[in-house]
């Protein structure tokens, strides 16, 4: 195999091509993370420069853990992540199974399914705000018709508002999960299914013992992507509820944003974003350990 070892020139070329990319990753991905961590160890209040920027160690983190609003935000974030991810991957799988069948106009349906995902989140959030409006919203009209007295203010009630934000996210990103799962489904050779059918396996048996194991790697990928993305939810909350009502949709990302940009607590806000980063990292590592290593290699049996 010695003949395949890259020549010196090629190696240089490889590094030459890689270096700018590496430099960019360091400058725009790693450095901000490191810098956020450094900031999170200081007390920095923008409007009080007289305080200086003293190093306070883990004080911001201690405050974060003790703050009821922060704890509530963390709980809200976890609920959002768990519910939205499960629904999205579940719905996405159903959509993918449907789209994998051949039927007339399949191309059109595939494109249509992707439309919610293609709409910018800010636009979609605004649309949902209109749909959920208590007086003129479509949803009230659909549910209650002319019973104006029964109209609900969906975004004004804590439970419903969180459900609404989750619903909007599911509506928007299930198609993305579907796309990944569909790609997985398409790698399964048709002959396998046909052979199983000839052997007398019913649709459920074929799904349970053939399709599902083979599509598991794709499912795992969809799950990882959606979980990590769900932790970063921001724009939906920003447009639809601004964290309200009564802080019911105040996810960590939005909480940190308010601390940092609206209130000027740079150190504390950085601590919040570092926390989110650590949570995403932890979840990703758990995924990789539990399912990833085996499934991503593709020997899922």
């Amino acid at each position, binding site marked *: 195999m010695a003949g395949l070892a890259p020549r010196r020139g090629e190696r240089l070329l490889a590094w030459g091509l890689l270096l700018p990319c590496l430099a*960019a990753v360091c400058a725009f991905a790693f450095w901000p993370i490191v810098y956020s961590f450094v900031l999170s160890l200081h007390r920095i209040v923008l409007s009080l*420069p007289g305080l200086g920027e003293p190093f306070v160690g883990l004080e911001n983190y201690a405050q974060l853990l003790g703050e009821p609003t922060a704890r509530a935000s963390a709980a809200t974030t976890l609920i959002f992540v768990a519910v939205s991810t499960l629904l999205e991957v579940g719905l996405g799988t159903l959509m993918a199974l449907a789209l994998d069948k051949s039927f007339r106009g399949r191309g059109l349906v595939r494109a249509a399914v992707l439309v919610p995902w293609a709409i910018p989140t800010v636009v979609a959030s605004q649309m949902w705000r209109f749909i959920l409006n*208590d007086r003129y919203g479509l949803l009230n009209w659909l549910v209650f018709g002319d019973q104006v007295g029964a109209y609900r203010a969906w975004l004004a009630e804590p439970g419903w*508002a969180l459900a609404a934000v989750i619903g909007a996210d599911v509506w928007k990103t299930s198609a993305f999960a579907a796309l990944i799962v569909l790609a997985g489904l398409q790698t399964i050779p048709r002959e396998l299914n046909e052979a199983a059918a000839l052997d007398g396996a019913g649709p459920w048996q074929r799904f349970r013992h053939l399709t599902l194991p083979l599509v598991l790697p794709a499912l795992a990928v969809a799950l990882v992507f959606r979980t990590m993305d769900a932790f970063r939810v921001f724009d939906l909350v920003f447009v639809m509820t601004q964290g*309200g009502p009564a802080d019911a949709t105040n996810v960590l990302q939005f909480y940190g944003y308010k601390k940092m940009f*609206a*209130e000027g607590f740079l150190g504390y806000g950085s601590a919040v974003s570092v926390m989110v980063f650590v949570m995403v990292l932890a979840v990703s590592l758990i995924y990789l350990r539990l399912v990833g290593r085996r499934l991503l290699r593709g020997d899922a049996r």
Partner: protein
Amino acid sequence: MVTLRSIVLLGLAALLAVAGAGCGQTDDAPDTIRLVAWKFNNPGLWRRLANRFEQAHPPLKVALEIGPHSSTAYHDLLSQKLKNRSSEVDVFLMDVVWPPEFASAGWALPLDQVMGPERQKIFIPAALQAATWQGQVYAAPLYLNAGVLYYRRDLLEAHGLPVPQTWPQLVSQAKQITARQKSGLAGYSGQFKQYEGLVCNMLELVWAAGGHVLGPQGKRCLLGEPPALKAVRFARDALIGGVAPRGVLAYQEPESLSLFAQGGAVFLRNWFYAWPILNDPQRSKVAGQVGLAPLPRFPDGQSASCLGGWLVGISAYSSKPDKALELVNFLTSEAAQRSLALEEGVAPARRALYQDPAVLKAHPHFARLLPILNQARTRPRTPLYPAVSQVMQGYFHRAISKTDSDLPALAEGAAQDVDRLLGLAGGN
């Protein structure tokens, strides 16, 4: 043939281009004044004013940057620039609640030398108070806003009712009218979503009940005291749980206004800006049937409006403060404020314009706004106002959105949070 070197160079050049884009090109021409403004309802406004300034002050030019419409979002943008000591800002618009913060952070230049005592008298007192921090003036007032009560004149007349003077009176009138009108008519509409507008609506109630947010010298938070609790309980039980639709808990200005403009509410709390809209038959079903009055008080309290509006300040990092001052003086001059009033219908910060025949002819209702502005109050004055406001937003929304909320406990928690912030700021 593409060589290795050229590829590497190309890559580096691309990287530098990306990195360089972040720095921006600063057009630091000596005669260009950079004005950073929020997005006015009528977006052409700033350019028109800038053009007039340029005509009157050659060779000065104004480079305009227009930020977001929302005051909070514009605050994020502007404070980012000032935090980074950006040379891209000479003159900026400042919300009336910002001067303590901007002064304390060292972002705004003190203007007392040009805003001497005799010039100060020119402006509405509350506006000047808003522009002042620890005895120094940091901005010149441009135009103002305050909360007022809009009511359906036709409905009150049909039921033989006077304009309500007190909050309980407003509630009982609203009940009386909605009970006899078509279903779906709401008694009251306002801004109760969890955002800055909620603070204004709630503080007006707290003040009207004789309460305060901060004690004397801004030392201690008084939200847990009886008058403030009484006001919050009233909002929860009589307004949200009574005559207002629950939807107001998700309303900002446009939603609350449209409910009233569509004929869906008897009373509306909103800012001055709503008057021309409500009287425009194209945009309002109740045009010509709307009245405007000071907000109600509680029987043992006083009517109080929350002061809103905009001031003009100069960046401490401006390289040409003298030229910047010319622009500030122009924007807040009597001529400019008169044309703002005439053309845009906004309420000027200069007192004399409320007796100006041309202005009164175009906007007769301005005569009624002056007494309201004279009674208007500023929100708590502290460099940490944005954080104090966040505490209040969370507290008020929690308190009024659940009918069984434990008000004293919630208020105590909020007061402690505010006290902690005041302690951080050194109890100014």
